[in-house]
């Protein structure tokens, strides 16, 4: 599904990703772990198409097409989803309106008719249950006045509505208490299927107790330095990243 080969990315002439490669197939969950400042969030942003990054080398194929050639909104329409680490607040735009636009833009791009309003509302209620959102959520402005936990739950809710092929969760667990973490993880687990894939970016092993990954990658200094199964995460929890500090120098 996703094939990243030798990706080099710079911001303002400073190289952040230094030859990163990663293969993700449908049905897989990949966890990417690593200390602060190694380029984990950069990877998420580059895949989603945020402005300001310069790709100096390498390639990214998504279902066989060159992802880097597409505008951010086109990538989203093709099924790339980024759950933001810091979701923005959008005053005056209700969650219902925002998602109606998002869902219908995606349908339009696929040559489908807009979703009938009653069907949309039904879907919204269903998915709200998944992340335990209160009823007034529909008419509230996107993320405005939301607690940290609510914002993250909203990200998962939006993911559930848009049903992406590839979802990238950028430190969705940061700042969550144990209940919110459970809700978020539960949401993700219910959405897992043989047709979609997840990249879970996280600092802590904790999240991976709830979302059990097929693969764990250690990212250090702009590339993936070690890959393994879920046991690698436990190992990291115990030993930290010290070993890589020496390995990459």
């Amino acid at each position, binding site marked *: 599904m996703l094939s990243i080969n030798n990706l080099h990315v710079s911001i303002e002439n400073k190289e952040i990703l230094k030859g990163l490669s990663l293969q993700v197939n449908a049905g897989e969950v990949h966890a990417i772990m690593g200390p602060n400042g190694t380029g984990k969030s950069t990877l998420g942003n580059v895949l*989603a198409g945020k*402005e300001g990054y310069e790709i100096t080398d390498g390639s990214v194929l998504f279902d066989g097409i060159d992802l880097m050639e597409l505008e951010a909104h086109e990538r*989203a*329409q093709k099924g790339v989803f980024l759950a933001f680490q810091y979701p*923005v607040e*959008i*005053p005056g735009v209700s969650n219902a309106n925002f998602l109606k636009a*998002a869902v219908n833009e*995606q349908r339009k791009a696929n040559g489908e008719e807009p979703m009938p309003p009653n069907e949309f509302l039904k879907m919204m209620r269903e998915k709200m249950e998944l992340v335990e959102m209160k009823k007034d959520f529909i008419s509230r402005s996107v993320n405005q006045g939301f607690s940290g936990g609510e914002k993250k739950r909203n990200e998962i809710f939006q993911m559930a509505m*848009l049903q992406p092929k590839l979802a990238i969760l950028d430190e969705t667990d940061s700042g969550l208490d144990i209940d919110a973490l459970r809700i978020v993880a539960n949401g993700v687990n219910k959405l897992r299927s043989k047709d979609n894939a997840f990249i879970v970016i996280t600092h802590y092993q904790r999240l991976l107790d709830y979302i059990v990954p097929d693969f764990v990658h250690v990212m250090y200094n702009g590339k993936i330095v070690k890959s393994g199964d879920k046991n690698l995460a436990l190992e990291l929890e115990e030993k930290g990243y010290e070993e890589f500090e020496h390995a990459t120098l």
Partner: protein
Amino acid sequence: MTEQDAIIDEVVNSEYKYGFVTNIEQESAPKGLNEDIIRFISAKKEEPEWMLEWRLKAYKEWQKMTEPAWANVHYPKVDFQDVVYYTAPKPKKNLNSLDEVDPELLKTFEKLGISLDEQKRLSGVAVDVVFDSVSVKTTFQETLKEKGIIFCSMSEAVRNHGDLVKKYIGTVVPQKDNFYAALNSAVFSDGSFCYIPKGVRCPMELSTYFRINAAGSGQFERTLLIADEGAYVSYLEGCTAPQRDENQLHAAVVELIALDNAEIKYSTVQNWYPGDKDGKGGIFNFVTKRGMCKGSNSKISWTQVETGSAVTWKYPSCILAGDNSIGEFYSVALTNHFQQADTGTKMIHIGKNTKSRIVSKGISAGKSQNSYRGLVKVHKKAENARNFSQCDSLLMGNLCGAHTFPYIEVSNNTSKVEHEATTSKIGEDMLFYFQQRGIDEETAVAMIVNGFCKEVMDHLPMEFAVEARKLLEISLEGSVG
């Protein structure tokens, strides 16, 4: 060029959609202003002597006055002797049905999306149309008459309802109130007049469309609206003008009077030609709008969506004289290119337990300057007066400006006055959030702007809100779908 710059650039390159000129025969006064011109206008209008006297008095006051310079706007000095003070579509006669209206004129209004025909009955709106300075047609006068409502052109009112006009004209905005109001009082050529009798709830929205067509002419309409005890009316006002290279002057006066328990809701969508993207041409919009909550428990609510004009100088205000009266001001002012707007409100609390609420949303794009200027004044006797003001500014790009000038004067310590202000920018992070959900930039900006204005838009009558939303989108075209 970053993506955001590209959006701003597209915004800056959008065009005005109502810039056509109607080829219609005009009857005009010669350029310039003197007593003879005023006599000419008054005679054309077949006015009674008292009206002429009133105009001449205003003219004398005007001559003693100087143009105000305190607003945060800069424009070439207007040569008041180089303006045509009266133009009217010709031939001028009393129209009894729409068939008698010049077909060119009807076409103009069709282009503007205003149908004067039966459709308006279905949508429940009665329309008075002011073309250049003359009211050309008022619809549904008959239906309204059954309820005792008077809705007609100002000229007609002066002739047929002289007692009412004489009683109320200039009581809220006196002739010498300010430079432009004095000028308007001297030369106003038409406008709308409305009287809602005691206890009557006006069954339909009343609406006036203003259009400046003739070159080199100024428009000086005057609107007078009286809601008698217990009456209710919702009034809509729309404005457009052709695209011309020279600046044109618009100096209107609107006076509202609400007696005991009466309520007036006054909504404006102002889309005068704003000038081209290099700042050439456009309307100078110097307007005095004021409402008097004369009776107790009365309420006046101003809602405005301002997207047009090169320069706007406008402060729809409320004098809260009656006890328990309420004043409201909801405003969206959007400026783009080289537009300048200095707009806001005055809430003058005189009566006891009076309340006012101000919600102002300024959107600046291009190289425009957008200022909110507001005064909240609480008189000594205004026990328990209460005001809440909120002024929010939204900036698009790095070349525009937003300014807030709140003035608060309180002389009664039982009163409570609150002011909140925010300034924000449509940031890359916000746009990226939309894009990441599959929504392109244009739609994103439209949704952000509409979200920003929502609180004000919610106060517009349904039909008007749709139009206003479209107008905002057109004014930001390129960034908005």
